[in-house]
């Protein structure tokens, strides 16, 4: 036990060296992050870009000369487009703390509502806006129900079931074919690039800017990381939890509308493959299921990696299910790598914390 006299001396010392008086004192030691940690964090945050780069190089050599061409690049981008939009929805949901499994249902209902309106002679814009409104409505419903303390996964599974049923009711058991009004955002090409690629670019740029540069987006991410912290900052956090569902619903609706445009047919069948592809891309992107973490550009690259693999293997004439196998291998590998990096980072941080105890003799 320290006596008052010596203790006040060491307090003063600590104040001077560690905290520094106002205006005085250079930053204390230990402020620089160790090189190794910086490198590891870089690997964790940018690893997926490196992985994609390696894949591109490998396939360019292996599938030469058919892979590394502008036409094939457009093909890959277009193949990745739908997965990317849904992955953005799933990803934003997870980052903000919810796993929204109702996405395929939202896509189906948006698609069928739009299809019904267009078939009954309403203008294209009305059909598209109504589809988007479906996304908002589903998001609000999911959010408000989940706020009552129910598990969002179960709630959204319930929503999925309701929506697929409703979509089938609207379609009367059939589909809405021949929606050629929508080709402008489906198979139509502008400057040689198909419309969905432009849409994806817009979605990801707007989404990234929203999440990193706007107040609402930053709070949305913060709620995913630690809702209690947001609440204690005097912010009404439930509002942001609902907002997360709404954003994810809108993206699902966009995905549904794009799918409708590409096939010029509104289909009430909600394909579960949508959600699994999207989840794979999101997981590849290292978006932690615990929330609050991740970035949309990485999610986009995740979707591109999936498309790249299946494209490259197809060029080599390898059966498509090998693409599925390799995707799974990559996914598990990425998870293992991330865990290893995370452990290494924490070990090094602990080491430096201890270091400062020994070097800083007060």
């Amino acid at each position, binding site marked *: *036990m*320290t*006596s*008052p006299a010596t*203790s*006040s001396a*060491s*307090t*003063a010392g*600590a*104040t001077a060296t*560690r*905290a*520094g*008086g*106002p*205006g005085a*004192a250079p*930053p*204390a030691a*230990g*402020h620089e*992050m160790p090189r190794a*940690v910086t490198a590891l*964090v870089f690997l964790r945050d940018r690893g997926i870009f490196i992985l994609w780069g390696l894949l591109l190089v490998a396939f360019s050599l292996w599938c030469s000369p058919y892979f590394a061409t502008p036409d094939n690049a457009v093909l890959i981008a277009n193949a990745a487009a739908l997965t990317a939009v849904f992955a953005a929805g799933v990803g934003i949901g997870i980052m903000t703390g919810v796993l929204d499994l109702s996405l395929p249902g939202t896509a189906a209902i948006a698609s069928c509502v739009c299809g019904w309106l267009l078939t009954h002679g309403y203008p294209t814009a009305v059909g598209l806006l109504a589809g988007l409104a479906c996304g908002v409505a589903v998001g609000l419903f999911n959010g408000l129900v989940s706020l009552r303390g129910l598990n969002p996964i179960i709630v959204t599974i319930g929503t999925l079931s309701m929506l697929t049923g409703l979509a089938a009711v609207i379609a009367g058991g059939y589909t809405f074919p021949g929606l050629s009004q929508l080709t402008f955002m489906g198979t139509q090409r502008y400057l040689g690039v198909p419309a969905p690629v432009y849409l994806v670019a817009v979605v990801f740029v707007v989404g990234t800017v929203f999440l990193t*540069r*706007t*107040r*609402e*987006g*930053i*709070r949305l*991410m*913060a709620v995913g*990381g*630690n809702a*209690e*912290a*947001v609440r*204690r*900052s*005097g*912010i009404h956090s439930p509002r942001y939890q609902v907002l997360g569902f709404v954003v994810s619903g809108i993206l699902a609706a966009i995905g549904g509308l794009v799918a409708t445009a590409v096939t010029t047919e509104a289909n009430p069948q909600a394909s579960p493959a949508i959600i699994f592809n999207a989840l794979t891309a999101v997981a590849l992107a290292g978006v932690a299921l615990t929330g*609050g*973490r991740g970035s949309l550009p990485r999610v986009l690259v995740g979707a591109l990696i999936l498309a790249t693999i299946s494209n490259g293997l197809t060029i080599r004439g390898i059966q498509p299910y090998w693409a599925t196998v390799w995707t799974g291998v990559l996914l598990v590998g990425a998870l293992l790598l991330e865990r290893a990096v995370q452990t290494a*980072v924490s070990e090094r*941080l602990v080491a*430096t*914390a201890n270091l*400062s*105890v020994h070097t*800083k003799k*007060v």
Partner: protein
Amino acid sequence: MTTGTGSGAGTPALELTGVEMHYGFVRALDDIDFRVHPGEVVGLLGDNGAGKSTLLKVMSGAHRPSGGTLRVHGEEKVFHAPSDAAGAGIQMVYQDLALVDAQDISTNLNLGREILRRGPLGWLGFVDHRAMRKRSEAELDRLGVRTAPMTRPVEMLSGGQRQVVALARSAIRVSGASNGILLLDEPTAALGYEQTKQVEALIRQMADNGIAIVLVTHNLPLCYQVADRVVVLNRGRKVADVAMSDTEPDHVVGWITGARPSQFHAASA
């Protein structure tokens, strides 16, 4: 002790008189008088279940007391929720720090008080990251804190630095026009030697800036480092209220365990 600024005369920043708190038949707080002055650090000690956390919750508006009155800077107040206490300049720092790990220090410090950009981008809700960093740096400077670069994610900080960020976040929010009141529940519980020193220094700095601080802890040396006065609770009653310089560790331990008779209820104890 350090300067010992606020101990003594003047209007207390926070004053509780005759506070009672019952949980059913459990009397968690029994006729507690308590005050803390601007710039004063009061250590609140007591054994497990003595009622420290309960008293802190009454002060922070998380609990309505069953009886007694509460004054902030001389004005009687009734708190219905923690937001009422926050409005009166009282902030509680909980043991779980409630930081957003993946976000950087600046974002954590500015959550809920973001600076928007000027012009059309601001209307769209775009934040001015640089302005927020600058403001936070200035605020930390005023507190005398240097932790790490503002852009460092909180998850990359040591335990002590995280605690410092959490303390600073609350301190920034209370140090407005009238000096605020900070309630700390076990701020060094999970920290090593060096990091405890860091937090000690910050607590002293904040008090020297005029903030009134109530510090709940089981760590007696910490009290001797930073507190001006100590209040000891024993089974819901206040048994001692003394200036740190007038007391010895043995006596304090005696009050905590109940071995030493109360200063106030000699007969009944």
